[in-house]
C-alpha cells in the first residue's frame, strides 16, 4: 500500500524536477536572446541597420498582401476576364467611388494623394512621423479603388505603407530624432521595391525624390530594406519581373533618331498630363465640401464609361503594358489608350481617390511609345526599331518627363526589361523628355502637389539644380608674402619690411601652414632671437586648409576667427592656390544671392 502511495509522489517529484530543469534551460535561452538583442540594440547605428531589415521584411509582407487584396477585389467586383461585362464596368467604379470617399472623409483623412509627398512631409516636417492609421487606410482604400477599376497604381501607396510601418517601429523603439526621420524613407524604399520588384529603382527614387542626398548611413538602411522586401516578394510570387518583356536586340545608330522623336513626344505628353493635374486639381479642391463625397464616384463613372470601349484603361494596367510590349496593339489603339489613360488617371487623381501615379505613368509611356514607334515604322520602315522596343523606352520617357526622376527613369527600364542594350535609346529619349518637361513646367509633379496643399517641401529637383558654391569661387590671390619655416627670424622680418606686410604666411615642409605677424616677429627677435629659425620659435597653431573644389559651406567654419584659410593643391599641400577670408566667403554668398534674385 505504501509502495502504491509512494509511486505517485515519486512521479510528481520526478516531473517536478523535469519542469525545474526545463525552466532553467528556458531561462538560460531567454537570457541569451536578451543578451543578443541587448547587444544589438546597444548601438543605435547597428540597431538602425537591423531595423531596416525588419522593416524591409514587414513592408514586403504588407505589399504582398496589398497585391493580393487588389487582385482579389478586382476578381470579385469585375470578374476574372480582361474585358468585364457592361454593368459591372459602369457600376463598380461608381459605387466603389462612394465608399472610397466615405472612408477618406470619415475614417482615413490622411490617405488622399499618392503618398510620396506625405512621406516627404514626414521626413522634413514631422520628424519621420507617419501615422500607422495611414498604412491601414492606404491598404483598404487603394485596394478598393484600384481593384474596382480606378486608373491608379499601387506603388506610391506601397511606398507610404512602408514608410508608415517603419515610422511606427521607430517610434516604439524611441530612436533618436535623426534616425526616426531616416526610417521613413527606409520603409518607403522597401515598400516601393516590393511593389515594383525592382530594388535599385526604389532606392534611387527615394534618394532622388524623398531624401535628396546620398548619406552613407541612410543608404545602407535603404538598400537593406529594399533587398529584404524584394526577397519577401520573390518568396511568394517568384522572381518574375513585374512586366513580361520580350527580348530586344542591338539597335542600329540610325534608330536613335526615332527614339529622339519619342523623347519629344514623351516630353509633351508629360506636359499635358502635368498641366492637366496642375489646372484641375486645385479647382476640384476649391469646390464645396459636399462635392468631395461625389467626386470619386463621378470619376468612377467616367472611367467606367470609357472602360466600356477601352477596358484597358481601368486599374493599374500591368497586363496591358505587357501586351503592348509584346506588340499586341496597333499604333492607333496604342495612341488612343495612352491619351485616354492620361484623362482617366487625371480624373481619378484629382477626385481625391487615393492611389499612385507610377503604374499609370508606365502605362501611358508604354502606349505612347508604342504609338510613336508604330507611326515611325509606317513612315520609315527600315529606319526604326520594333514597336515593342519603343513601348519599353516610352516607359522611361514618361518617368523622366512626368515624374521628373531622371536617374530612376533609366534604371526602371533596365530593371523591368533586364536588358542593358536598351540603355542608349532610353538615355536619349529620357533626357529630351526631361528637358522639355522642365522647360515648360518649372515645378515638378510632387512639389506641385505639395504647394497646392500649402506645404513648402524642399524640392529635390531645385536642390539638384541649385549651383553649389565652391572654394574656388571665393578664394583670392594671397596678399601676404610666403616664407619658409626654415627661414631665420631676421629674414622673415626683412621680407615683411620690404613688402610692407603686417603678416607672413609660413610654409612648413610637411605642407602645413601658419601665419606670423609683425608683433610676433618682434618678440622672437628680442635678444639673440634673430638668428633662430621660424620653425623653432613658432608654436604649433596650424591653419586649416581647404581645396579649390570643396563646397564653400565647409570653409565658413574654418574662416571664422582666423585671418585667412590657405587654399592648397590636392596634389601638393605645400602649393598655395589662393587664400580665403571670411569676408570673401560672405561676399561670394551675397553675390550669388543677388544673381539668383535677378
Amino acid at each position, binding site marked *: 500500500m505504501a509502495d502504491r502511495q509512494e509511486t505517485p509522489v515519486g512521479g510528481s517529484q520526478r516531473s517536478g524536477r523535469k519542469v525545474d530543469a526545463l525552466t532553467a534551460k528556458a531561462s538560460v535561452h531567454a537570457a541569451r536572446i536578451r543578451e543578443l538583442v541587448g547587444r544589438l540594440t546597444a548601438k543605435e547605428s547597428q540597431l538602425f541597420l537591423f531595423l531596416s531589415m*525588419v522593416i524591409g521584411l514587414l513592408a514586403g*509582407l504588407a505589399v504582398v498582401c496589398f497585391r493580393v487584396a487588389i*487582385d482579389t477585389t478586382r476578381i470579385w467586383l469585375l470578374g*476574372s476576364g480582361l474585358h468585364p461585362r457592361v454593368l459591372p464596368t459602369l457600376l463598380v467604379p461608381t459605387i466603389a467611388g462612394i465608399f472610397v470617399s466615405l472612408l477618406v472623409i470619415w475614417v482615413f483623412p490622411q490617405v488622399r494623394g499618392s503618398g510620396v509627398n506625405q512621406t516627404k512631409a514626414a521626413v522634413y516636417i514631422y520628424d519621420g512621423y507617419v501615422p500607422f492609421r495611414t498604412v491601414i487606410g492606404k491598404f483598404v482604400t487603394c485596394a478598393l479603388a484600384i481593384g474596382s477599376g480606378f486608373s491608379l497604381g499601387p506603388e506610391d501607396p506601397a511606398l507610404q505603407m512602408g514608410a508608415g510601418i517603419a515610422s511606427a517601429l521607430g517610434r*516604439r*523603439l524611441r530612436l533618436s530624432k535623426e534616425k526616426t526621420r531616416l526610417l521613413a524613407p527606409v520603409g518607403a524604399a522597401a515598400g516601393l521595391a516590393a511593389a515594383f520588384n525592382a530594388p535599385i529603382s526604389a532606392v534611387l527614387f527615394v534618394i532622388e525624390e524623398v531624401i535628396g542626398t546620398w548619406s552613407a548611413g541612410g543608404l545602407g538602411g535603404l538598400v537593406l530594406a529594399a533587398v529584404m522586401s524584394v526577397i519577401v516578394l520573390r518568396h*511568394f510570387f517568384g522572381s518574375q519581373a513585374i512586366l513580361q518583356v520580350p527580348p530586344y536586340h542591338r539597335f542600329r545608330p540610325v534608330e536613335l533618331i526615332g527614339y529622339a522623336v519619342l523623347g519629344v513626344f514623351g516630353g509633351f505628353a508629360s506636359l499635358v498630363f502635368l498641366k492637366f493635374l496642375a489646372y484641375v486639381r486645385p479647382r476640384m479642391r476649391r469646390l464645396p465640401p459636399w462635392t468631395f463625397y461625389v467626386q470619386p464616384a463621378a470619376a468612377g463613372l467616367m472611367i467606367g464609361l470609357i472602360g466600356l470601349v477601352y477596358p484597358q484603361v481601368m486599374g493599374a494596367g500591368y497586363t496591358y503594358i505587357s501586351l503592348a510590349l509584346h506588340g*499586341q496593339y496597333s499604333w492607333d489603339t496604342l495612341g488612343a489608350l495612352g491619351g485616354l489613360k492620361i484623362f482617366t488617371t487625371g480624373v481619378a487623381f484629382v477626385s481625391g481617390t487615393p492611389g499612385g501615379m507610377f503604374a499609370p505613368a508606365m502605362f501611358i509611356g508604354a502606349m505612347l511609345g508604342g504609338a510613336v514607334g508604330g507611326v515611325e515604322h509606317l513612315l520609315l520602315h527600315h529606319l526604326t526599331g520594333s514597336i515593342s522596343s519603343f513601348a519599353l523606352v516610352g516607359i522611361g520617357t514618361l518617368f523622366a518627363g512626368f515624374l521628373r526622376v531622371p536617374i530612376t527613369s533609366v534604371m526602371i527600364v533596365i530593371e523591368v526589361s533586364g536588358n542593358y542594350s536598351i540603355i542608349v535609346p532610353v538615355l536619349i529619349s529620357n533626357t529630351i523628355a526631361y528637358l522639355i518637361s522642365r522647360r515648360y513646367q518649372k515645378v515638378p509633379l510632387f512639389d506641385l502637389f505639395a504647394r497646392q496643399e500649402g506645404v513648402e517641401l524642399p524640392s529635390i529637383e531645385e536642390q539638384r539644380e541649385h549651383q553649389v558654391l565652391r572654394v574656388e569661387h571665393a578664394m583670392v590671390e594671397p596678399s601676404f608674402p610666403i616664407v619658409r619655416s626654415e627661414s631665420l627670424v631676421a629674414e622673415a622680418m626683412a621680407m615683411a619690411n620690404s613688402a610692407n606686410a603686417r603678416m607672413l604666411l609660413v610654409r612648413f615642409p610637411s605642407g602645413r601652414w601658419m601665419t606670423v605677424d609683425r608683433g610676433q616677429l618682434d618678440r622672437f627677435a628680442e635678444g639673440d632671437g634673430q638668428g633662430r629659425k621660424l620653425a623653432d620659435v613658432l608654436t604649433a597653431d596650424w591653419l586649416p586648409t581647404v581645396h579649390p573644389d570643396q563646397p564653400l559651406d565647409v570653409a565658413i567654419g574654418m574662416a571664422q576667427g582666423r585671418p585667412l584659410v590657405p587654399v592648397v593643391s590636392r596634389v601638393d599641400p605645400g602649393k598655395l592656390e589662393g587664400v580665403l577670408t571670411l569676408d570673401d566667403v560672405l561676399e561670394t554668398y551675397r553675390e550669388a544671392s543677388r544673381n539668383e534674385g535677378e
Partner: protein
Amino acid sequence: MGEIHEEIERGAKWVARLWSREAILLTAIAALVVMFAITEVVVNFYTAKQGELAKMWFRRGDQSLLENRPKQAVEDLRNALRYDPGNTAYQLRIAQALAANNQIDEAEGYLLDLWNNQPGNGEVNLELAQLQARKGSPDAARYYDNAIYGVWPKDPEQHRWQVRLELFHYWFSHGNTAQAQAQLVALAAETPQADYEHHTEIGNLQLQGGDPRQALQQFQLALRVDRRYAPALAGAGAAEVAIGEYRNAIPYLQSALRLNSKNSEAAAQLQLARLVLASDPFEIGISEEERVGRTLNAYRQAQVTLAACASRHNVAVQAKIPQNAFQQIWAQGQQLQPLVTKLRGNPQNDLRIMNFVFSAENLAATECGPLKGKDQALWLIGKKHRLAEASGPGGK
C-alpha cells in the same frame, strides 16, 4: 502605504521593462513571424485560385481554338496568361491562336520571346518556321532546321520526322527540288528499316518529286518488311510505270488491287500499263501482223487526236501551206500515208510513222491538256522510245 508605493514602483519598472527596446524588437520579430505565416496561407490560397482561373481560361481558349474561333481563343488565352504570365505552354498556344487569327506579327512577338528563353525548343522553332513560311521569309528554313535538331520532350523521332517532311514540302512548294530531294534522302536515312509505313510515305513523296527510281527503292524496302502492304505495292507499281517498266509494274499493281480493289489509282495505272504493253509496236516478241496492226492503230489514233485537239483551237489541220504546228504535223502524217500501206515486211517504216504519232500526241498533250487512255499510252510509248533513242544502241 509604503508597500503600495513599492508595488507601484515595481509595476512601473515592469512596464518599462516590457516596453524596452529589446522587448519591442522581439515583439516585432514575433509579429513578423506571425505575419509571414498568415501571408503564406493567404498567398497559397490566392495562387491556387489564380492557377484555377488560368487553367479555366486556358481550357476555354483551347476549346475556342478547336472550334475554329481564333479571335475568342486569343481573348481567353490572354486571360489565362494574366493569371499565369510565365507559362510557356500558354504563350505557345496564344501564339498559335494569334497566327490562326492572322495576327502574324503579334504571334511572332510571343514566339520570339519563347525562342529567346528556349532556343532549342523544337515546338517553338516549328511554330516560328511555319509563321516565317506564311510570311514568305527565308528564315523559315533556319527555324525548320532548328526544329529538326531541337528538343522534343515527347516522341522526338516522330516529331523530327514530321518536321523534315514539312521542310520537304516547304522546299518543294518553293520550287527548290534539290533541297526537297535532300530532305527526302535524309528522311529515308533516318527511317528505321522496319518502318514500312514511313518508307512508303517517302516513296510516294519521291514519286511526287519526280524521282521514281529512289521511290521504287523505298517501296521495295517497305515490301521487304510487309510483302502484302497495299500502299507500297501500289506505289511500286506506279514507280515502275513512271520509270517505263510496264511489265514490272503489272504484278505490283495486280497485288495491290487484290488487297484493295477500291484503289482506283492503282486500277488506272494497271490499265495504263496494260494499254502501253498492248499498243507498243516495238515490243519484243510480237508477230509481224501484231506489229503492223499496232502501228496502224497508233497512226489512226494520232490523226484523230490531232484533228480533235486542233478543232478545239479552231484550227483546220489541212492547209496548202502549213502555218502552225497542227498543220505541220498533220502534213507530216499525210506524207507518211504511202508508207502505211507498206508496213508489212518493212519494219523500218514503223519508226517514221511512230515518230509522227509521238509528235502528234505530244502536241495534243501540250495544247489540250493531259492525255487519257490510248493517247496517254501512245505518248508514254513515245517517251520511252525517245529515251531509248537518246541513250543510243547501248541504252535500254
